[in-house]
């Protein structure tokens, strides 16, 4: 789901980058207000977790690969604004050092995986886990479902961003300038991969991660309760 450079028009990339600026600003303001310095290592470990989980590629039946992102796990444990920054840092290093995801496309990738995914997941979690006892079966299941839906929302967005390119941008000879596949191909291909496999893996990691955290560090859940 790391959109490389060249697949989206520069105008698409810069638009999403411009949308991300106030989101990063707001995330920083919330973090400044709600976190104290002793909690910074957890944010940093969340960012590393996201990076490492994204390296675990999973085979998809249609011959492509997918991976989990960890954004919803971070959002539930530390709050969605912390997840915005943690996943953004992971995506930035991936783009700059490893060429995974474009440098110009960084803003788009951050929008999909570091903003939409944690927030969608966080609110779905709150909806399902409402009043469930912390660490209970319903609480853990809610985390799993939230992870599944959060990743699929990010994938859906990415597929739409890919799919609108050939509609909007073609060369003089009519060939597509950027991503050559339209919505009719991009959306089913991406969604098949994420609805069937990658989303399930994301849900699994989110659920066991939240189960582990609620048993081992209840103080983290407390942060989330305060923030939310």
């Amino acid at each position, binding site marked *: *789901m*790391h*959109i*490389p*450079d*060249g*697949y989206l*028009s520069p105008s698409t990339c810069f638009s999403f980058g411009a949308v991300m600026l106030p989101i990063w600003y707001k995330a920083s303001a919330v*973090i*400044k207000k709600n*976190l*104290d*310095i*002793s909690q*910074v290592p*957890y*944010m*940093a*470990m969340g*960012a*590393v*977790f996201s*990076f*490492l989980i994204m*390296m*675990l*590629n999973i*085979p*998809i039946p*249609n*011959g*492509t*690969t997918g*991976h989990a992102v960890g954004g919803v796990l971070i959002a539930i444990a530390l709050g969605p604004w912390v997840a915005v920054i*943690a996943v953004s*840092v992971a995506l930035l*290093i*991936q*783009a*700059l*050092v*490893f*060429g*995974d995801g*474009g*440098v*110009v496309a960084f803003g788009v990738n951050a929008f999909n995986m570091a903003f939409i995914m944690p927030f969608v997941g966080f609110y779905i979690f709150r909806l399902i886990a409402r009043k469930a006892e912390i660490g209970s079966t319903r609480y853990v299941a809610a985390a799993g479902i939230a992870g599944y839906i959060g990743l699929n929302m990010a994938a859906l967005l990415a597929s739409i961003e*890919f799919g609108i390119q050939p509609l909007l941008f073609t*060369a003089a000879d009519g*060939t597509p*300038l*950027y*991503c050559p*596949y339209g919505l009719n191909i*991009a959306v089913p*291909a*991406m969604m098949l*991969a994420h609805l069937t496999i990658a989303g399930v893996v994301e849900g699994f990691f989110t659920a066991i991660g939240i189960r582990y955290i609620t048993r*081992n*560090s209840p103080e983290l859940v407390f942060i989330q309760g305060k923030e939310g």
Partner: protein
Amino acid sequence: MQRKYIIILFILAIISPLGLLAQGTAWGEWGPEDMNELLGYVPQGINQAQEWWKAIFPDYTIPYLGEEKIFESIGYICSAIIGSTLIYGMATAYGRIIIKKNAKIDQKLTTL
């Protein structure tokens, strides 16, 4: 407590080459050669973008190592460790700069 999480992350880094077992490329992340195979041409924009940025460790490979499977795995683990260190450092630096003070703990205790 934090040590437990560090150990889990370390294990994830060590097992990261499992991610290499998955054959193929993620949808929409093909290089220009794959693109040429799929379509018979490379869209102009994709071609031009190849020059925009040269990553030091492209696709989690360490260029000095060989291309055999074992070196590919070692390179992947090295990439996992290098990336994790950079990310941990950057997130920590960000947190320290943004939050600055440590006095909030007392404030929180008094408002409980």
